[in-house]
């Protein structure tokens, strides 16, 4: 029985799709079976980040509406054989997703995989609520800025109210993943620090993904960053986050500002 995880944020462009692809790949690399599901109907791009856009035949809406079988729509990754994608439709309207249809598809995925990761659309409306509806756990993707943190706070309120588990009086496991973290800007006070974010959201931290050109390069190549350059800082951060999601206790180090030559030579600046 799968662990169903929603990757959500409220705000758009914070790194949900990048995170879904990276965590899904990292989990699948350990040999576990993983389905990543694109709920961003009309703006699909999980297929692009995974380099599977030319292989899409059927999509989530076809399966929800019963026009295609789940196994017809699932696309197996060419590099990692335990990773599967259920793409979103680019042309259909998100209203084509029915509550019952989504429940049935998630249920079927739950039987067949170890992990089901749902990439949520932005916003707090129906699309985002459908993506979180059946989740057992949530990864709340937050950028170190006030508006993103506030939207995350709003989404956390919905996770505690509008999910199936919440309605049964249970809680869902919630983790904060800080992405696009720029240590230099945080040090200069131009971005919120990790402590500020955690104080406001008061939830455990799953990881800190640094801002990195490598992420952009990887998604343009259609290769998740954990595969394109496994030694890079964002790849290592995602791999460790995936281990924490599995329940492993991995220490979190807040990325520090890279010291320039000047400070290397003359030691620490006086505070």
């Amino acid at each position, binding site marked *: 029985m799968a662990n169903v995880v929603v990757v959500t944020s409220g705000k758009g462009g914070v790194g949900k799709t990048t995170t879904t692809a990276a965590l899904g790949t990292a989990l699948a690399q350990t040999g576990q079976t993983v389905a990543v599901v694109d709920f961003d109907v009309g703006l699909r791009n999980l297929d692009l980040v995974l380099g599977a856009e030319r292989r899409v035949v059927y999509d989530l809406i076809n399966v929800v509406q019963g026009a295609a079988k789940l196994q017809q729509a699932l696309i197996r990754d060419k590099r990692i054989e335990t990773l599967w994608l259920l793409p979103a439709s680019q042309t259909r309207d998100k209203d084509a997703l029915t509550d019952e249809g989504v429940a049935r598809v998630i249920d079927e995925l739950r039987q067949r995989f170890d992990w089901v990761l749902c990439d949520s659309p932005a916003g707090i409306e129906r699309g985002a609520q459908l993506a979180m509806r059946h989740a057992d756990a949530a990864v709340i993707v937050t950028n170190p800025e006030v508006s993103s943190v506030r*939207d995350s*706070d709003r989404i956390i*309120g*919905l996770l*505690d109210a509008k999910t199936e588990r919440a309605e049964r009086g249970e809680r869902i496991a919630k983790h904060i993943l800080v992405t696009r973290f720029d240590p230099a800007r945080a040090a200069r006070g131009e971005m919120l620090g990790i402590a500020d974010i955690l104080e*406001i959201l008061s939830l455990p931290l799953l990881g800190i993904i640094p801002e990195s050109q490598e992420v952009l390069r990887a998604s343009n190549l259609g290769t998740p960053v954990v595969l394109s350059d496994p030694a890079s800082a964002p790849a290592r951060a995602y791999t460790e986050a995936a281990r924490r999601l599995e329940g492993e206790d991995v220490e979190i180090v807040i990325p520090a500002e890279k010291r320039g030559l000047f400070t290397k030579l003359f030691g620490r600046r006086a505070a």
Partner: protein
Amino acid sequence: MRTAVNSKPRPRPVRFRGRSYMAFALAPELPVADWLADIDGALGRSPGFFAGRPAVLDLAGLTLAPTEIAAMIKELEARGIRIMGLEGGDAAVLGSELPPLLTSGRGVATSESAPEPAPDPAPEPAPVTRPSRPTAQTGSLTVDMPVRSGQTIYHPHGDIIVLGAVSSGAEVVAGGSIHIYGALRGRAMAGANGDRRARIFCRKIEAELLAISGYYRTVDDLDVSLRNRPIQAWLDGETMLIAALD
């Protein structure tokens, strides 16, 4: 693949659901122009005060013609205050152009995930002389998780205790006092039904708004020396006082 067929809809039974909301009740005073000027003053100090919250116009004790009421509603709408209903007027006089006349106003507001107070235990046949027990309604409401942005906790007949932070964009409204064992970053409104003895306590003040029995202060009127400290707020006559607790 076919999309939905455009067939003629079959008649279906109409379903109704009851819902209660919280609204501000505004009681205009004469002369109306002066009262509107007071509202302008209040909005100047706290521009977002009425944002997103419907209001009810309480006409009790006033004799205004429907045209005068309509003009007042226009004035309020120009200030971003939407009047969803009237109270205390005479239905025969008002006519159908104005918002509907509401009665039995005391409804309980919805909140996205506010824990419901425990239901009353099954009533026992009580001896006539026995003092009435406080029900869950008049007791305090304890919220054991943070109040998140977009949520409202509303408890009209008692105190609210929050064991966590109240986020920016969240709101706690109590008939009695409010106790927050965390940071207050959103709005807290105590004494919402007019209890002037209600107080607000919090462990760390970064609030957007504090109100007691309708008297309020915003972040901007907060003494900078108090920021981020534990405080209590109470009413002294018509002035809200705020003092550090540490």
